[in-house]
């Protein structure tokens, strides 16, 4: 009996000592590293939240369809009900902002576009992840924030050095092309530069209702980001002067890019100002267009024989080079926790975000059609072979990624509206590029003045 007691005491002492050593050794280390050393059981972590329902906004895009297929497993393990709402991208900011300001509590998980992070974080609508990663009951030891591509975590999830969200739906602009159409035109590979696309490929691939290129330019974020900014950056221009935040669209480089966009019009479909992502992807998929520059997330649509006539002839590479170098478009979304949600819903929302973006689920997510932000999944040889977009995507993010492709500050949505309207009119010829740029800069000035005057921190 005595021996038993002394053994118990010994074990107890050892346990206390081990706990003390553990606490001592982890002190001062980053949260996620601290979390790594303890075991994590999702079912156990979710035990207090069994029966909790969370609202999650989805878009009608491949990454979300992949996540939808994965959801039953999460719900089964955790007992948390995930209510998804599929919404058009164009309405997603409006719906979420009204939810935040109206306190309707529809969305516990917040879908944060790369260009909304400044607005959402500055308004304190989303919660810094430390609230959860500092809680050992909720933090997955294998979260490994360093396992995300740095540009994605920095751009999509971080504002003013605070991490709010984990990259979920990740895009880089890629050049997709129809190998057969290019071969028929006498080309054995894709254009390496914008100049070559226009002057060499353009004439040979355009005719008989076929077009060399399609640049999605429908009014909205498609016009301002995919079309307008793509050309400004490629020719060495920019929207703002980085030091002063004054407009920079009237610089010779920005104007050259926008004039080049006008030069591209004869090799593009005549109604290109009405083409959104769907029309552009279908243009290539149906064999009407030779080359497009589209988001990485559309690979699954273009490679699937049931949705693409050119799946066997699909080629992918990085975006062409311009006088400003290679400047592939950067876009995507992170998932963050709504700071207005109840505590238990916040915890359940975090468990979902952590799980869907975990390294463990990255492979499944990719195989089901998503584009993961985890570096490790792109190193798996079988997947590299299966998904030819891996190499150009990784190269785009690591080598050419531009985190300020669009400024991420709270004023961008308003500026995007201004650019989208006048940018479309430029393409239609109802206003010249030079006059259009003047109009845009005049309208942007009231939004930029507080930054120029130093009243607001120059973060983008």
């Amino acid at each position: 009996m005595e021996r038993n007691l002394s053994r118990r005491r010994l074990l107890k002492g050892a346990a206390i000592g081990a706990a003390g050593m553990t606490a001592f050794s982890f002190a001062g280390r980053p949260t996620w590293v601290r979390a790594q050393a303890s075991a994590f059981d999702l079912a156990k972590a979710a035990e207090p939240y069994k029966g909790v329902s969370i609202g999650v906004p989805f878009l009608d895009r491949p990454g979300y369809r992949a996540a939808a297929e994965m959801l039953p497993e999460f719900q089964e393990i955790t007992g948390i009900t995930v209510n998804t709402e599929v919404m058009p991208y164009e309405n997603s900011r409006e719906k979420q902002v009204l939810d935040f300001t109206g306190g309707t509590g529809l969305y516990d998980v917040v879908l944060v576009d790369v260009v909304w992070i400044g607005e959402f974080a500055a308004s304190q609508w989303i919660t810094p992840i430390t609230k959860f990663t500092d809680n050992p009951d909720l933090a997955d030891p294998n979260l490994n924030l360093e396992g995300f591509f740095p540009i994605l975590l920095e751009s999509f999830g971080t504002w003013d050095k605070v991490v709010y969200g984990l990259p979920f739906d990740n895009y880089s602009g890629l050049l997709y092309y129809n190998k057969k159409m290019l071969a028929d035109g006498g080309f054995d590979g894709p254009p390496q530069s914008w100049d070559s696309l226009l002057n060499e490929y353009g004439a040979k691939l355009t005719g008989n209702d076929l077009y060399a290129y399609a640049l999605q330019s429908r009014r909205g974020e498609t016009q301002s980001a995919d079309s307008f900014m793509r050309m400004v950056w490629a020719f060495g221009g920019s929207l703002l002067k980085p030091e002063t935040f004054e407009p920079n669209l009237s610089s010779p480089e920005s104007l050259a890019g926008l004039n080049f966009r006008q030069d591209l019009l004869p090799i593009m479909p005549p109604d290109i100002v009405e083409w959104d992502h769907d029309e552009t992807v279908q243009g290539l998929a149906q064999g009407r267009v030779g080359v497009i520059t589209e988001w990485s997330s559309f690979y699954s649509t273009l490679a699937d024989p049931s949705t693409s006539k050119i799946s066997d002839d699909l080629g992918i590479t990085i975006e062409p080079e311009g006088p400003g170098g290679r400047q592939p478009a950067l876009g995507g979304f992170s998932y963050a926790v709504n700071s207005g949600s109840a505590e238990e819903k916040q915890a359940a929302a975090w468990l979902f975000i952590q799980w869907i973006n975990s390294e463990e689920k990255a492979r499944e997510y990719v195989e089901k059609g998503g584009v993961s932000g985890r570096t490790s999944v792109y190193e798996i040889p079988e997947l590299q072979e299966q998904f030819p977009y891996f190499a150009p995507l990784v190269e785009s993010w690591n080598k050419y990624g531009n985190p300020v492709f669009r400024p991420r500050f709270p004023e961008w949505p308003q500026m995007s509206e201004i650019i989208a309207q006048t940018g479309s009119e430029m393409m239609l010829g109802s206003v010249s590029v030079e006059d259009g740029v003047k109009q845009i800069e005049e309208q942007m000035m009231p939004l930029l003045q507080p930054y120029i005057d130093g009243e607001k921190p120059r973060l983008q």
Partner: protein
Amino acid sequence: MATADYQSRSVVDAVATAPGGPLRRRVNWTPLTMLLPAVVALLLIGVYPLIYALRTSFQQFLVTKPYLGTPFVGLANYSAALGDPFFRDSLVRTGVFFLLTVPIQVVLGIAVALLLTSSRWRRLSAVTRVLLVLPIATTPTVIGLIGRLIYNRDFGLLNWAFSLIGLGPFNWLGEPKAAMITVALTDTWQWMPFVALVAMSGLTSVPPDIVEASKLETSDVWETFRNVQLPFLLPGLTAVLIIRTADILKMFDMIFVLTRGGPGVSTELVSIYVQRVGFRIFDMGLASAMAILLLILCNVLAQLYIRIFYREIEA
């Protein structure tokens, strides 16, 4: 007898309780109780939002900047709305859209109504009325989505049909003028049947003996229509004008889905612009001021229609 007695009662009946005594007022609660749900619903979904919008129109109300508060700014939002060239342009564009659609819808609607109330087609009236209701019953968003499939230059149904007879392809939505006409045609497809149905009801109220008498007077069909049938149509057509004016001033779903106001700003009607101000820029004060201005405009036009077109007719 009991029914007649019930009908003859007013909500507040004055009843003498005693000969020579004071009059006591007795409230009949039944009609009030039956009206109450409708009145409450109207107050909640109609009057309250209107008062809220009116109040907001006098405030600085930037939804995405709650830290600025919502201070009273007097008429500043109204002044900003009236001084906004994009608002004025969108209003002009809405006027052009109205002129492109409503006159054609009225003329075609009356023509269809005359055709369907003629003796040849009267037997099919049950079927034709159902067919006329179908476009009106279709959700505008669905019309926009279907329209995108029909009008697409490269993959659209309409250009495919034209290609069968060697025509096209036409750029229905990619050119500013063509896009406006395409949207107007879609609107006409949806709302012409409404005018036709209203006109049919007007035509059926014309006493047959007056029509017969007019036919004895003149063989000119136009004369008969103008002097006999048209007066019976005017009350209904005035209602059509008021409804269509209000509808066009708030038309959003179909155009937003079909063109998103583009290409450029060619189909950006005033409602699309107000939605941009309210839900993209999130300046609710300015958007509310614009909405109130549109409400005033709508009421002024309605009064004008009544004054110009409305005539009481007695058979």
